[in-house]
């Protein structure tokens, strides 16, 4: 019995030191191998994930910009040559046509350019005169909107689609005077202001804090030379019934900085300024009052204030700022605000007392380049009986094919041309153009066309004029995003940013990264060039 116990004890005495050490060495090698594999896997997964994150940032940013670009100018840009916008802080009109001469036009504090966005609802800022880097020399205020940055910025004005498109439904009942605190509008017999439900319906079309555009009488056909500047005003309270059965009263009290009737209606445009404005043609009974909802004026730009963390941001130049703007309008409920809580967006110009505030859109976006394609000029669209307007250069357009149904007709397609006799050379994209001695020919009647040479003197060497005063037919946007973490040089990473549009290869402040680009082309759907049938 004792023997058996001893024997089983010997059986169970465990491994020898040698056995253990060998086993440990072998398993260590195996574990090391597995560990190495999993490290490689982790690295590739990490790279993959970071790439996806960059792509997502690009896609998301492009989506945000694209939505706005497509609906830029919605509701007014086909009807107006320009929006007249009042800046209460400085007591002035800020639209280019609001100045009597081009030299007096208001320019933006950051971009240094006139507010041509009030003309088409879209304006690219690609002025990068002498810029040697993406971030530029702005330091803590470095931004792609500044002329010293090689990257671009973009301004858009969008209205709310559910309110627009009602030209002729509400017409001005009586000429507005400086003392008016409300617009009297007439409607057709379908609406009756003595019926409370009808008043309630009209109230919903003009919520407090939203905007209206005053357009010259709609009985004129949409010919370029019959278009005029329009007036932007802000609704300040609930719509009420007016004097007659078809009359309603839209409050536009001067509690809103936009509603300076005397300033808006002033006729200070002596030649050669914006002769597309005549208050006696717009501020008349029968002029159309169009609701455009909560119109927003946004600027997309890259914020380089932290040079290793470039960010795509949006500034609302017309927008609502919590705790800054009034937010207690309205006595009835509206879809976006209950009674007593309707916001009143206001004008927030850069450099003013209440500057716009940044809203983050996309991280790690290092470059944005905007090119504007334009080839929509038709002599018919620009024809004018007004002798004070210089006819655009009729040889400016790209000639069409020599034969076929389109023989002799201008080529209105935005394309990349090949040099050919009688045609201008190369492309039709401004902000990129290989040979920018030729500009695209999307010219349009309005302030920019009056005294084009004078504007060129003011705006500098944008060759040739008109440069960014073009009405864009297509907008091409390229975003370049970079990974969040530094990579080793030599692989796919680099400290150089690939050339995009007219920007050459440039060193990056961010460092060695793998970079991705996304290019998309948008047509602003509301601009006049969309359809050549509308002259």
């Amino acid at each position, binding site marked *: 019995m004792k023997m058996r116990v001893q024997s089983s004890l010997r059986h169970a005495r465990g491994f020898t030191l040698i056995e253990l050490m060998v086993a440990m060495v072998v398993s260590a090698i195996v574990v090391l191998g597995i560990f190495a594999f999993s490290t490689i896997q982790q690295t590739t997964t990490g790279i993959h994930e970071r790439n996806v994150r960059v792509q997502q940032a690009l896609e998301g940013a492009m989506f945000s910009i694209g939505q706005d670009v497509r609906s830029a100018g919605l509701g007014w840009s086909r009807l107006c040559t320009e929006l007249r916008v009042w800046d209460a802080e400085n007591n002035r009109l800020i639209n280019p046509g609001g100045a009597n001469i081009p030299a007096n036009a208001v320019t933006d504090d950051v971009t240094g350019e006139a507010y041509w966005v009030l003309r088409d609802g879209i304006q690219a800022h690609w002025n990068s005169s002498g810029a040697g880097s993406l971030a530029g020399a702005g330091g803590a205020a470095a931004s792609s909107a500044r002329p010293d940055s090689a990257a671009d910025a973009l301004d858009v004005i969008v209205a709310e689609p559910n309110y627009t498109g009602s030209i002729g439904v509400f017409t001005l009942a009586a000429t507005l005077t400086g003392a008016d605190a409300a617009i009297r509008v007439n409607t057709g017999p379908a609406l009756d202001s003595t019926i409370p439900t009808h008043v309630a319906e009209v109230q919903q079309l003009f919520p407090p804090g939203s905007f209206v555009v005053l357009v010259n009488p709609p009985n004129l056909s949409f010919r370029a030379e019959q278009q005029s500047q329009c007036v932007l005003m802000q609704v300040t309270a609930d719509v009420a019934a007016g004097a007659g059965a078809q009359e309603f009263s839209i409050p536009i009290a001067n509690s809103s900085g936009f509603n300076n009737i005397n300033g808006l209606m002033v006729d200070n445009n002596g030649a050669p300024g914006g002769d597309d404005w005549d208050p006696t043609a717009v501020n008349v009974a029968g002029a159309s009052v169009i609701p455009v909802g909560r119109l927003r004026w946004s600027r997309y730009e890259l914020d380089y204030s932290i040079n290793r963390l470039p960010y795509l941001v949006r500034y609302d130049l017309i927008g609502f700022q919590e705790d800054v703007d009034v937010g207690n309008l309205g006595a009835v409920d509206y879809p976006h605000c209950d009674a007593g809580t309707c916001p009143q967006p206001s004008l927030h110009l850069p450099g003013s007392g209440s500057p716009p505030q940044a809203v983050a859109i996309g991280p790690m976006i290092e470059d944005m380049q905007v090119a504007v394609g334009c080839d929509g000029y038709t002599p018919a669209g620009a024809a004018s009986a007004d002798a004070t307007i210089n006819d655009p250069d009729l040889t400016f357009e790209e000639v069409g094919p020599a034969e076929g149904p389109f023989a002799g007709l201008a080529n209105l397609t935005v394309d990349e041309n090949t040099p050919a006799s009688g045609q201008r050379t190369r492309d039709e994209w401004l902000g990129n153009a290989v040979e920018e001695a030729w500009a695209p020919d999307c010219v349009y009647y309005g302030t920019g066309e009056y005294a084009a040479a004078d504007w060129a003197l003011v705006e500098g060497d944008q060759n040739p004029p008109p440069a960014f005063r073009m009405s864009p037919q297509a907008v091409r946007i390229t975003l370049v995003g970079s990974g969040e973490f530094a990579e080793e040089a030599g692989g796919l990473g680099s400290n*150089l940013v690939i050339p995009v549009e007219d920007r050459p290869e440039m060193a990056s402040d961010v460092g060695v990264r793998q970079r991705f680009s*996304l290019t998309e082309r948008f047509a602003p759907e509301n601009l006049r060039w969309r*359809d050549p049938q509308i002259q």
Partner: protein
Amino acid sequence: MVSAASLRTAAVRRQRGFTLIEVLVTLLIFAISVAGLVALESRSIDSQRAASQLREAERVAQQEMSAIASRGFLELIARDFAGNANPTFPYTDDALDPGLRQRDFHRPPADIDNTAVVMGEVRGQYLVSRRIDWIVNPLNPPSGNPPPELEWSLVNGVEIEVTVLWIDDTNPAFPPPATLRTIDLTPAMTDPASADFSPFVGRVRLRTVRVNDAVLIPPAGP
């Protein structure tokens, strides 16, 4: 009766270790499993490459689609991709020089020479193929194909198709021939029913319908 000495001998025998054969067999099995792991790793890298190629192809397709979407509806009806007026539907860009339909990996539009090398790009990686077909009311179609200009309003919409093809060299089971060039690819190569079907050709296809959103042109009056 078993002596203590013989017991010790038995114990020594029991702990004498593995034979050479045993060790070799173990090593062999171990080597095979490691080789499997290595193969797995290389397949995993291949599939990562395949995923990134697919992603880039989607990007190329999306860009092409946005370029077509940004053209006016009447433009799409009036001219084909080569700029010829009044094309017959459906029209494609297959007749265009394939060199013009190639797109480069990682190459944004830039104001530089076409032959200049851009960091990270792969020259001629993708071939783009576009096709536009019309959608008409079968009860009230235009009088002919191509539609006369005055009947463009009868084209209710167009079907836009963008196909992006590339040589997929990430599957070791189907290696592409060394002589195959991107410009030689055709959409039929990705159709399993076709005689040209080639499993080493990758494809992304986007298709959408665009309604006639242009102002309708009234027929000529009396």
